[in-house]
C-alpha cells in the first residue's frame, strides 16, 4: 500500500514558468505599444508641421497676398483714373493710366496665384478655385484695358462704364473676384485644418502616451520585486537598464506633445496674420469703392439707374476710413514671425533615434528574462 501511495503521489506543479511568461508577454506588449505610439505620434505631428511649413502656410499667405494685390491694383486704377475737369480737360495725362504700380500689383496677383497652385493643399477643389479666379482676373484686366482704350479715344463715358464693370466684377457679393479669392483662401485653410490634430485627438494622444509610459514603468518596478522574491536576486541588471532607458525614452512623448502645442500655436498665429491681412485688404477695397463713388458722381448727375443709386446708398461695402498702405512692412514682419514660429515647431530628425531607443528597450526586456526562460525551457506545463 505504501508503494502504491508513493507511486500516485504527484509533485506540486510550479507556477513560475507561467508567471514568467506572463511578465515577458506583458512587458513586451506594453513596450511595443509605447514605442509604436511614440513613433506614430512623433511622425504624424512632425509630418503635419512639415506640411504646414512647406504647403499650407505658403498657400494661405500667397492667397492673401493675391487678394491684397488685386485690391491695391483696383484702388490704384481708380485713384489715378483721369477724371476730366469742368472745362473738359483731362485732369491727368492719359499715358500714365493705369500706371506701373497697377501693372506691378497685377503681376503680384499672377505670381501669388501661381504660388497657391504650387502649394495647393486642397486638391481638386483648390485647383478649380484657382482656375476660376484666373479666368475672372483676365476679365477684370480686360475691362481695365478697355477703359484705357476708350479714354485714349476720348470716350469718357464708356471708359467710366468700363471701370465700373471692372470694379463690379471685383466686388460683387458672392460671385465677385474678391469673394472667390476669399473662397480660395478658405479652401486652403480648411485643407490645413483637416491635417491638424483636433483638440480631442491631441488629448487622446497625450493620455495614451502617458498611460502606456506609466504602465511600462510600473511593470518594470513590479517585475523587479517579483524576481527578487522568487529568485532571491537583488536587481535584474537588464531590466534595471530598461527602466533607466525608459526614463530617457520619455523625451520622445514629451517632444511630441510639446511639438503638438507649438504647431497649434503657430497655426493660430498664421490665422491671425491672415486675418490682419484680410482686414487691411478690406480697407483698400473700401477706399477703392469710395474712389469709384467719387468718379461716378459727376458722370451721373442726370441719373445712372438703380445699380449706381444703390451703390451710392447701401450697396457700397463698408469702409473703416483708413487709407490703404500700398507698402505694408508691418504685414511683412508678422508674416516672417509666423513662418519662423512654424519653422521652430517640433524637433525634427529624432525618428531614427526613437526607433533605435525603442528597439533597445525591447531588447533589454527580452535580455532581462532570457536566463530564466532558458532555465524553465524544458519544464512541463
Amino acid at each position, binding site marked *: 500500500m505504501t508503494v502504491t501511495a508513493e507511486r500516485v503521489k504527484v509533485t506540486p506543479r510550479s507556477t513560475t514558468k507561467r508567471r514568467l511568461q506572463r511578465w515577458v508577454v506583458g512587458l513586451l506588449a506594453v513596450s511595443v505599444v509605447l514605442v509604436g505610439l511614440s513613433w506614430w505620434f512623433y511622425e504624424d505631428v512632425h509630418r503635419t508641421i512639415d506640411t504646414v511649413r512647406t504647403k499650407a502656410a505658403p498657400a494661405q499667405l500667397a492667397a492673401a497676398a493675391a487678394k491684397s494685390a488685386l485690391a491695391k491694383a483696383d484702388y490704384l486704377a481708380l485713384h489715378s483714373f483721369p477724371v476730366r475737369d469742368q472745362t473738359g480737360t483731362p485732369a491727368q495725362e492719359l499715358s500714365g493710366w493705369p500706371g506701373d504700380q497697377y501693372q506691378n500689383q497685377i503681376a503680384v496677383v499672377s505670381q501669388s496665384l501661381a504660388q497657391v497652385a504650387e502649394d495647393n493643399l486642397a486638391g481638386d477643389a483648390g*485647383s478649380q478655385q484657382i482656375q*476660376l479666379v484666373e479666368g475672372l482676373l483676365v476679365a477684370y484686366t480686360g475691362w481695365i484695358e478697355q477703359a484705357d482704350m476708350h479714354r485714349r479715344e476720348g470716350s469718357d*463715358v*464708356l471708359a467710366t462704364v468700363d471701370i465700373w464693370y471692372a470694379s463690379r466684377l471685383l466686388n460683387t457679393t458672392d*460671385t465677385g473676384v474678391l469673394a472667390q479669392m476669399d473662397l480660395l483662401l478658405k479652401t486652403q485653410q480648411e485643407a490645413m485644418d483637416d491635417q491638424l490634430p483636433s483638440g480631442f485627438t491631441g488629448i487622446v494622444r497625450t493620455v495614451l502616451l502617458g498611460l502606456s509610459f506609466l504602465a511600462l514603468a510600473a511593470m518594470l518596478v513590479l517585475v523587479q520585486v517579483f524576481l527578487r522574491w522568487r529568485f532571491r536576486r537583488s536587481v535584474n541588471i537588464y531590466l534595471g537598464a530598461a527602466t533607466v532607458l525608459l526614463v530617457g525614452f520619455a523625451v520622445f512623448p514629451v517632444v511630441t506633445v510639446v511639438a503638438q502645442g507649438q504647431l497649434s500655436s503657430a497655426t493660430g498665429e498664421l490665422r491671425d496674420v491672415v486675418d490682419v491681412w484680410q482686414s487691411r485688404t478690406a480697407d483698400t477695397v473700401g477706399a477703392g469703392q469710395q474712389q469709384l463713388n467719387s468718379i461716378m458722381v459727376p458722370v451721373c448727375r442726370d441719373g445712372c*439707374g*438703380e*445699380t449706381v443709386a444703390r451703390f451710392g446708398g447701401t450697396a457700397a461695402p463698408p469702409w473703416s476710413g483708413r487709407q490703404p498702405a500700398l507698402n505694408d512692412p508691418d504685414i511683412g514682419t508678422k508674416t516672417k514671425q509666423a513662418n519662423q514660429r512654424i519653422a521652430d515647431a517640433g524637433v525634427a530628425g529624432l525618428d531614427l533615434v526613437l526607433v533605435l531607443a525603442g528597439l533597445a528597450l525591447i531588447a533589454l526586456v527580452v535580455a532581462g528574462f532570457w536566463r530564466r526562460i532558458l532555465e524553465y525551457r524544458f519544464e512541463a506545463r
Partner: protein
Amino acid sequence: MRFLPLLLAVVLVVPACSATGSSGTVTVLASWLQNKDGTGEGDRFREVLDAFESKENIKVNYVGTRALTQVLQSEVLKGTPPDIAVLSSPGELASLARQQYVKPLDTIVAQPEDQYSKQWQELEKVGRDKRYGVAIKADLKSLVWFNPSRTPRPPDGFGLTGYTWCGGLGGTPDSGWPGTDWIEDILLHQAGPEAYRKWASGQPQAPSTLAVPPVWNNDIVRRAWSTWGEVLAKSNPRSVLLTDFGDAGRPLFAGTPGCGLDHQPSFIAGVYQGYDEKPLPGKDFDFTAFPGLGSTTKSWEVSADMAAMFNDTEPARKLISFLAGPEAQRIWPGRGGAFSVNRKVEPAVYPNDVSKRIAGTLTASDTLCFDASDLMPATVRTAFYRAVLEYVNAPDREQRLPGLLAELDQVSASLSDEWLEVRCGTG
C-alpha cells in the same frame, strides 16, 4: 472547429454583400454649387442624383464648379474628363461634339415624341446628326415682363416703341449680353428663323464673294440694330449702361413707377422675387411674348443646360438615360427655379401660373432657337457684347452703326472656321 461554419459564412457572404453594395460609380461635373444651408442650385441637382443613386444603386460623385469651362477643358486635354458634364453653352457642346470628345446618345436615350418635342430633339443635336445633349433645365427668352397692376397686358403684336422699357446691360463678367438678347430677338422676330440661323452660324444673308462676307453689315442685321436703337431712344444711355440686368426691373415695383416693360429671360422671375417689395408672380409681375415684327413664324429664343457623356460606361449610360426621363425631370421643377422640356412633366409640379405657362411654351410646337451669341465663336461673342455697349453710348447711333458692323465683320471673317451651324428646332 466549431467556428469554421461561421468563418466560412463570413468569408462567403461579405464579398457578396459588397458586390451588391454598389453597382459602380459615375462622375458628374456641372456649374451648380451646393450651399451649406442646402439652398444652392447644386443641392437641387444633387437631389436628382440622389434619386438615381437610390434607384440604380450606383454612386454619383458630383463636382460643382463655377470654373466649369476651364476645368472641363483642362480635364479633356489631360484625357481624364468626367463621365458626364452639364454644359450651359450649346456652342461649347457643339464644339466638343465636333471634336468627338462627347458620345452620341441616340442608342442610350429614347426620344419618344410624347416626351421630347421635335424642336428639342433637333436642338439637343446641337447642329450634328445625332443627339449629344440632354437638357437638364431650360430657360425661355423672348419674354416681356410687366407689372399688371400698373401696366395693362400689351396686346399681341404690340409696337416696341410705344412703351418705356427698363434697361440694364451690366452682368459680370460679360456685361453687354442683355443687349445682344435684344438684337437676337428683334432679328428673329423681324426676319424669321432662317435668317437668324444664317447670322448665328456666320453666313451672309445672300451669297457673297467679298473677302469679308457681310455677316453683320447687311440689311437684315442692320435693321435689327436700328430697331433696338428706336427702343433705346426714350432711355438714358448712361443708366442703361451702368445698371445691372438684375436691377433693371426694380422700377416695375418701386414706389415711384418707372419703366413699364422689361425684356428678360424666364430666370428673371426668381430675381424679381428677391426684391425688397417681394413681388408675387401673376399678381405683381407677368409676361407676354416678344411681339412678331414681320416674321410669320411664331418663334422663341431658348437656352438650356445640357448633360453630355464623355466616357461610355454602363453607369454613365444609366445616369444619362435617367436624367432624360420624366422621373428625374420633374424633381428640380418641383422644388422651384427650373423648367423641364420633357412633356411628361406635369404642369402641376410648377408652383404658379406664370411658371406653368413658361413650361408650356417650352414644350409646345412653336419654333425654338438657341441664343445666337452662345453659338458664336468666343471672340466674336465678346466683340458683339462690346459693340452693344458702343452702340448704346453713341450720340448718333445710326451714324455709328455701319462702322460697328464692319468691325464685327472683320472679327468674324478672321474666325471663319470656328463658326457652328445649329438650326432652330421647328415643329
